[in-house]
């Protein structure tokens, strides 16, 4: 996973929405961490649910995938699985490369 780049193709019509989208995803990392520290699995489920809905809609399939895993982890109160997902999410956001067409 480390060193891997993630290429995403986004419609240029929504190019101007992407900076805010990514900014909100980074804020989401903080929210996820805070909820995990508090063992607030309902909050984690809701955050995962939101990621699942919004990620793919913008073309970021990995965000939806991670959201689904966080949602599942929250349902089973799987602290370790969620922590791994959050790390993977942060790594993904650091390395994602976007092109517009």
């Amino acid at each position: 996973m480390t060193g891997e780049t993630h290429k995403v193709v986004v419609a240029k019509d929504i190019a101007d929405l992407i900076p805010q989208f990514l900014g909100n995803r980074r804020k989401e990392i903080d929210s996820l961490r805070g909820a995990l520290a508090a063992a607030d699995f309902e909050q984690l489920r809701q955050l995962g649910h939101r990621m699942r809905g919004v990620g793919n809609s913008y073309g970021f399939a990995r965000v939806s995938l991670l959201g689904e895993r966080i949602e599942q982890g929250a349902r089973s109160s799987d602290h370790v699985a969620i922590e791994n997902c959050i790390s993977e999410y942060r790594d993904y956001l650091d390395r994602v490369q976007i092109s517009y067409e």
Partner: protein
Amino acid sequence: MNELAFPAHKMSSGQAVFRVLVVDDDQDMAALLARTLTKEGMSVDTVFDGDAALVHAMSSTPDLILLDVVLPGISGFDLCERLKADDATALIPIILVTTLEDSRSRVRGIEAGADDFLSKPIKLEELVARVKTLRRLHETRRELEARRLTAEVHRKEAIRKAFSRYISPRLAERIISDAGSDGLPFQSRAKRISVVALFADLRGFTRLTETMEVDKVVGMLNEYFAVITEAAYRYDGTIFSIAGDCLLVGFNVPFPQADASQRAWHTAQDMVAGFAPVLAGWTQGGGLPTGVGIGIASGEAIIGNIGSPHHMSYTIIGDAVNTAARLMQMARGGELLVSDVVYDSIRDLVPAGSVASRGKVPLRGKTEATPVYSIELAKR
């Protein structure tokens, strides 16, 4: 920030902007939906919770709502249910947007009245296709509704015009507004109310016209009725019937008139004054010993539809009407006969020297004699 507006990028000339309300607590999702629809020429408002959506939908009535199910405040299901239960918003198409794929959520959405569904992640082509489909349906429904309303207005106007030639415009208006849900007029129930009844008659005219040509008689009657019906309308009297040369006008019916007796008095004055030049013209053309005799009485009467299933009259009946008719039959041309109750209401208006008591007069159909006053309105 609770609300955002995304004006349409473009709008074809002459076409009304299609207004969409996007309701989603995720600002990124809301922005994406709004961007996609504004590109299609639609105007988009965005709100981020159920309560704001309810206020917005009620106040600005959008053409379509894209509604997320999971919302802070009122849930999407509950909001959908409330909007569909309100006449003002029931026809707004609602697309429920959800990541809940299970069939229970769809069933819940259908029960709440949703018109269509979209699943997250959103496929933008599918979003546009579904919105456009509902837009076409909505616009067709709106056009049909507009046509129906126009036809209804034309129908009522035609009825009003037709009625107004035969009965007073106010009465026509009342009958039309009383039309039942099946569109049939005369559905309202009869009721007992206090009325002032005025009968006017062209005294001796029937006998005088027995030897006249028919066209001449009809022409004279039309001149006469033009004057006296105008006088009745001037004081908001309701004309209930015209029979031969006799006219029945009601006051305080079907609309309340606190000064009904005074209106009846002014009407009687104007009838006689307005008829004077007509009578003068007739006199020059050969001379006729006639004039308008009037009777006014007040009391309770029943208003309603009277007749058979084949022929009905919307009219008033009762003691006040009978008394006014009897008084009119006794009145000479240019004379007004009123009951004591009516006279008490108008005595301040009656010029001194023009009134005389006739004492208690026995009237046909009444057990007790009625105190009657005679008021001279004009010389015959």
